């Protein structure tokens, strides 16, 4: 604020500025509440990142199980998309096929199925995932449980035979009617159940578990490929580290203690980390944003709960595998966890917070 402004160099007043001849004619300007800029990410972007991250695991599965796996994948994705479209139609809402969420559900469901699944099993699974898992709650964002896991558990309980008929991986040429066998965890559970030791089960070595040359749902077998994809998601900032790390740590801790106490009847924690659906579950299913807590503290609790339940079901439950059940149970606990892990408001004293919460 100086006296000079508005006066010419010699101190004489300047002419009032004449407005520019061409007036600015503001066309329809957009008026909306702040903020006016955005970081750029959107929901389809997130879904695409997850799909990309699933690629290594998916390719490994396709490599080991061949055409059968491809058939399951195509059926599941097509089924989910069709069901998504139909559900939107039914409630007269715009179809949401473009947000990639139905594609992702389809891919995850497929990866959670045996490669030899009959076509009707896959389609029923798709309908359950999208219809019962998501649409009935109001669509994306409102479902309390992971849709793909709802479908998997529904199928496992309804069609136990088909859901536990595991094709033995034989590479890309694996025939559609290939020989079947047990999963590593299944073999161990059976051997221990018969009073034998873990070593008697003849489970595949760690190297096979790592690359995925073992029986199982076709997308869960290659721990290494899934881990790569998960780490990439973490690096891209799509998922937060708390869930996978807490998940794996809790599983390793419980199975590790059991193994140390009785190595003959409890497999090494490495087998539990690399075997079964743990990698797929910890990195891709438990990290589902909609069905997990929103705070980082909540995610730690959620992940640890998943890991703990997985280990307990695997070691002492009736099923050889417990990842799906564990995640679904923790999904149910998510609202409770959210409630108890509300962040402290800036400037709020710790004590005040407790009192406010108790009131």
């Amino acid at each position, binding site marked *: *604020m100086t*006296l*000079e*402004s*508005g*006066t010419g160099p010699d101190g004489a*007043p*300047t*002419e*009032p*500025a*004449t*407005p*520019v001849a*061409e*007036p*600015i004619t*503001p*066309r329809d*300007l*957009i*008026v*909306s*509440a*702040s*903020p*006016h*800029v*955005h*970081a750029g*990410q*959107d*929901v389809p*972007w*997130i879904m695409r990142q997850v799909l990309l991250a699933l690629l290594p695991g998916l390719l490994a599965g396709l490599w080991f199980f061949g055409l059968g796996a491809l058939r399951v994948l195509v059926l599941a994705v097509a089924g989910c998309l069709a069901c998504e479209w139909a559900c939107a139609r039914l409630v007269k809402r715009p179809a949401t096929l473009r*947000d990639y969420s139905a594609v992702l559900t389809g891919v995850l469901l497929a990866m959670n199925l045996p490669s030899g699944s009959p076509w009707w099993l896959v389609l029923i699974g798709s309908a359950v995932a999208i219809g019962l898992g998501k649409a009935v709650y*109001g*669509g*994306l*964002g*409102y479902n309390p449980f992971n849709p793909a896991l709802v479908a998997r558990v529904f199928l496992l309980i309804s069609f136990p035979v088909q859901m536990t008929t595991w094709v033995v991986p034989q590479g890309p040429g694996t025939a559609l009617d290939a020989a079947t066998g047990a999963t590593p965890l299944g073999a161990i559970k059976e051997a221990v159940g018969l009073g034998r030791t873990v070593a008697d089960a003849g489970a595949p070595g760690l190297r096979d578990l790592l690359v995925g040359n073992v029986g199982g749902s076709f997308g869960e077998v290659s721990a290494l490929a899934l881990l790569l994809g998960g780490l990439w998601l973490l690096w891209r900032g799509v998922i*937060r580290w708390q869930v996978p790390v807490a998940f794996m740590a809790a599983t390793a801790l419980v199975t590790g203690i059991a193994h140390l106490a009785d190595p003959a009847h409890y497999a090494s924690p490495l087998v539990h980390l690399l075997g079964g659906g743990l990698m797929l579950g910890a990195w891709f299913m438990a990290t589902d*944003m*909609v*069905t*997990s*807590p*929103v*705070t*980082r503290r909540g*995610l730690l609790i959620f992940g640890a709960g998943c890991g703990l339940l997985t280990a307990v079901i695997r070691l002492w439950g009736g099923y050889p595998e417990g990842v799906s059940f564990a995640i679904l149970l923790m999904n149910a606990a998510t609202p409770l966890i*959210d409630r108890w892990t*509300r*962040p*402290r*408001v*800036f*400037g*709020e*004293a710790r004590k005040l917070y407790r009192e406010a919460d108790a009131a």
Partner: protein
Amino acid sequence: MKFSGGVHPAYHKDTAGLQIEAMPLLHRYVVPIAQHLGAPGKVLVAKGDRVARWQPLSEPVGFVSVPVHAPTSGTVKQVAALPHPLGRPMLAVEIESDGEDRPWEGLAPPADWRRLEPAELRRAIQAAGVVGMGGATFPTHVKLSPPAEKKVDLLILNGAECEPYLTADHRVMLEQAAEVMEGLGLMMRVLGVTRACVGIESNKPDALEALRRACPADVAAEFTLLETKYPQGSEKHLIYALSGRRVPPGGLPMDVGCVVQNVGTAVACLEAVRDGLPMTERVATVTGAAINVPHNLRVRVGAPLLDVLAHCGGVTPDVGKVIFGGPMMGIGQFDMDVPLIKGTSGVLCLRDDEAVLFEGGPCIRCGACVDACPMGLVPSAMGLIAERFRFEELGDWHILDCIECGSCAYVCPSRRPLVQHFKRGKAEWRDILEERRAKTDRDAKRAETAATA
């Protein structure tokens, strides 16, 4: 000390190198009476009156009120409800300039702040109509008058300028460093504090250096380069970053012994006392991809937006949004006849394709907003509650602690209009509180009447 949360938007500080340029005198100015938080003043002029530059157009009513002054000499064309940057028309004085720019004879004589008493300085600051120039426009003399029971021991000078695009404060610090530091000394004298902290984001080391060099020997200031992170310039977060003190929820900076002032405000205070000049000008950044010639402008308060845009070469044909302030907290304008006012730190012109539409898909509970919220709130849950009009629940979620910084909406992948929800939610929650209070009062009165009867 680093606060948790916050975001790193693209900064676009393209105008940082442009010298402040004085906007030429205009034909016409529209000076709203309400340019500050608090009671609008009482209008002193009427249609047809001749006014001189710096002549008061209104007088304050009460303590939390400041006058506005004529930006140039001329004739009062009308005193009426005219377009205002806040959205709805408000009382304003329209002045047709006579081109003479004749100063008012009643100006206060220049004075030396080092010789004046705090009370005199406060009076001068109020009479000059000085308000916080960071954007909140709270009357400065009020902030400089903490009640006796609040022991203020630290004055914080806010040079963070964390809003993207804006460079007005940056230029003021570079070009008027001495005045900024003198103004800081003046405000320290008013408050009676011996300690001051200057906080500047790390993307403006030159500004910090300029202020350090210009610091007078008798002004004890500490200089700190802060992390470049939005909203570093938010009062509460700046205080925390510089002093480690946390303003409690619902509290004011003075509750932790601090007062925060913007660098532009420091200059305005100095000019009010040193030169006796009221606040009729400010520096504003006119920028964005949709303006032809970006500027850092010294513009007189009341300059119509249209003229300011014209001076900057006009807007491009693909202009989509014209914002007063920065892109995170600024206000979108729809009427090009609104004037720039004391709180207008910038005019941002965004292209059609840059103007983000927050259409609002479903919340996918990704938690990005929870990570981004610098206040430790849960925007995802609050947004869902507000969306369903369950406003009475918002109190439990500390809605009144929301500073509307926009970090949550900025990161939301579903583009949910969270800030819009919270602005409405706050208003609704305040209404609910008011209603409850009224009901308690009524009940108390009824009980009293029953007791006496």
